[in-house]
């Protein structure tokens, strides 16, 4: 007599199945929270930003009457914030790109495993330093000792010092993304180049760097996005309290988009308020969100492209 085994016998108990389904449901719900967060971010920005767009007197946002950013006097010259943001970002990139790239190339192409073991954690320490600390450093050291030494007529707190501070914050970021890009270049390329008699310098600059170009571009884009979104360094060291005149001079105080948001919000009673000053917070916020999102999407696209190449 043969024992027959039905498929149903192999299926385990219904209780076990129900438990599995429950666990899967919980995990799935958790994963959907991140989408909920995105929706809430866009929603919370959009409602008040729309109110601002509808209510505000646009001649005070763009044009001749928009002489600066004075939210309490209903003057919202957005160009003031955008130009300050661009100045800070440009200075930050001048600092972060060469230093970050140097660290990445050295770590990826030259450093022995032993040196790497020391350098990597040291860079991680720099990456771990909170941005308020860089803000303090920019105000206390970079403004008087660096910018003040070079430009005698620089203001005690200025956009240039804030820009250098933001750049220092971005060094580890540039280094780590660039190093990922360099690491993705297959060793066979380096070996082929060395086999043809190329020296290390030639291999690095003519073979490895071009092959890693998209990774390096991604690092650049992410760093720009990070610099645009950095708040505390500029809030502390940018020199403008809560309003600023239109200014294209880096050694003068200025207000970036992020610093303007922090200024509108700081001071306990301002945040609760209504009216255009409060709503401008959301308008600037949605601009900031849109710009950084576009940059991040772009960086992802570039990274995915080079992943497919190798």
């Amino acid at each position: 007599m043969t024992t027959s085994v039905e498929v149903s016998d192999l299926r385990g108990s219904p209780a076990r199945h129900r438990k599995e389904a429950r666990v899967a449901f919980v995990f799935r719900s958790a994963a959907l929270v991140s989408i909920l967060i995105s929706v809430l971010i866009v929603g919370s920005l959009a409602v008040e930003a729309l109110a601002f767009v509808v209510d505000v007197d646009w001649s005070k946002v763009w044009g001749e009457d928009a002489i600066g950013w004075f939210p309490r006097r209903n003057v919202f010259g957005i160009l003031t914030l955008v130009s300050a943001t661009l100045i800070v970002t440009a200075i930050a990139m001048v600092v972060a790109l060469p230093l970050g790239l140097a660290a990445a190339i050295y770590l990826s192409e030259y450093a022995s495993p032993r040196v790497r073991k020391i350098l990597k954690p040291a860079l991680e320490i720099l990456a771990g330093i909170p941005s308020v600390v860089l803000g303090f450093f920019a105000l206390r050291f970079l403004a008087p000792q660096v910018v003040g030494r070079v430009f005698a007529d620089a203001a005690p707190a200025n956009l240039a010092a804030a820009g250098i501070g933001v750049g220092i914050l971005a060094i580890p970021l540039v280094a780590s993304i660039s190093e990922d890009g360099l690491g993705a270049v297959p060793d066979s390329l380096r070996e082929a180049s060395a086999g043809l008699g190329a020296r290390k310098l030639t291999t690095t600059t003519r073979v490895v760097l071009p092959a890693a170009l998209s990774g390096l571009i991604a690092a650049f884009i992410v760093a720009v996005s990070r610099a645009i979104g950095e708040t505390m360094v500029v809030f502390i060291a940018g020199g403008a309290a809560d309003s600023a005149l239109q200014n294209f001079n880096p050694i003068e105080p200025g207000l970036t988009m992020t610093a303007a948001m922090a200024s509108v919000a700081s001071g306990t009673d301002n945040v609760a308020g209504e009216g255009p000053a409060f709503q401008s917070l959301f308008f600037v916020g949605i601009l900031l969100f849109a710009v950084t999102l576009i940059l991040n999407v772009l960086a992802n696209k570039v990274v995915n492209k080079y992943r497919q190449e190798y």
Partner: protein
Amino acid sequence: MALTTPGEIAANAAKRKARPTPRVELSELRRKNDVAGTVFKGLLLGGIFVTFLILIVLLVQVVRDGSNVLTGRLGDFLSSGLGSSPEISGIAQALRGTFYVTLITALVAFPLGIASALYLEEYAPKSRLTNFINLNIRNLAGVPSVVYGILGLTIFVNGWGIRSITGGRTPIAAGLTLAALVLPIVIITATEALRGVPRALREAGYGVGATKSEVIKDHVLPYAAPGILTGTLLSIARAAGEAAPLILIGATTGFLSDIPGWGDVTQAREPFTALPIIIASWARQPQEGFKVDNAAAAIVVLVVFVLLVNAAAIFMRNRFERKRAGL
């Protein structure tokens, strides 16, 4: 073809021996003076040197500025509350605020982040929705922290119905805001840790009849735990140092009436302040006592905490990497 006689072979060998072989010295193959190469390497090292010089100057500056308070009245500084003059002000409330905010952040972000990572790595089908979730997480990781502050202000502080739970501008609202901020980082690092778990481990589990959740609980999670823990520790350090979102949701910078005990959990629903907020607020004051001495002393406390957490994470990662390599 003629067969070669043994005699001829011997003669040929002798002839070959007599012919001088061209000799190439190793030194001839070396490039003599690779000036450009040396300069390039020097530039790279110079860049790294500058980076670390900046780090050292920064730490020296902060410690020097904070030394008056740190050596003169450290105990008083740690146990006093916010005050109107620098000499009597301290960070007692800020320490408690940061503790509770970070605790709430961890309690919300860790389970949520690890569960999300488990879904994406272990359960999710290769579908459009999965791709979208992944893309969304990567984009969320790049959203500036001030923008999370707007989310916190609108939803967790003023949100309809949510305000009655969080109590407005409180550590709970701040903790939830920072949890949203670090969630993508937790998910990404946890996903990477899960990806490092060998397939064979899972298959062995299934092979002896374990269900998916049992395999995850008994094999996948324990194996990935160090990696997950490292990532989550780093995100805690990040949350503890964040100031911008807390400014947006309206943490107090001026005055708080009393200093609650460490264990007094009701302060999670009271007005609060936090270490990075106090630093930013002091650094912007005109008085030297606030903007230099007190701000720097508070920075030293914050940096020591953040560096300790970072060091713990890095140490753990290195330890486990070595252990794995030895397997």
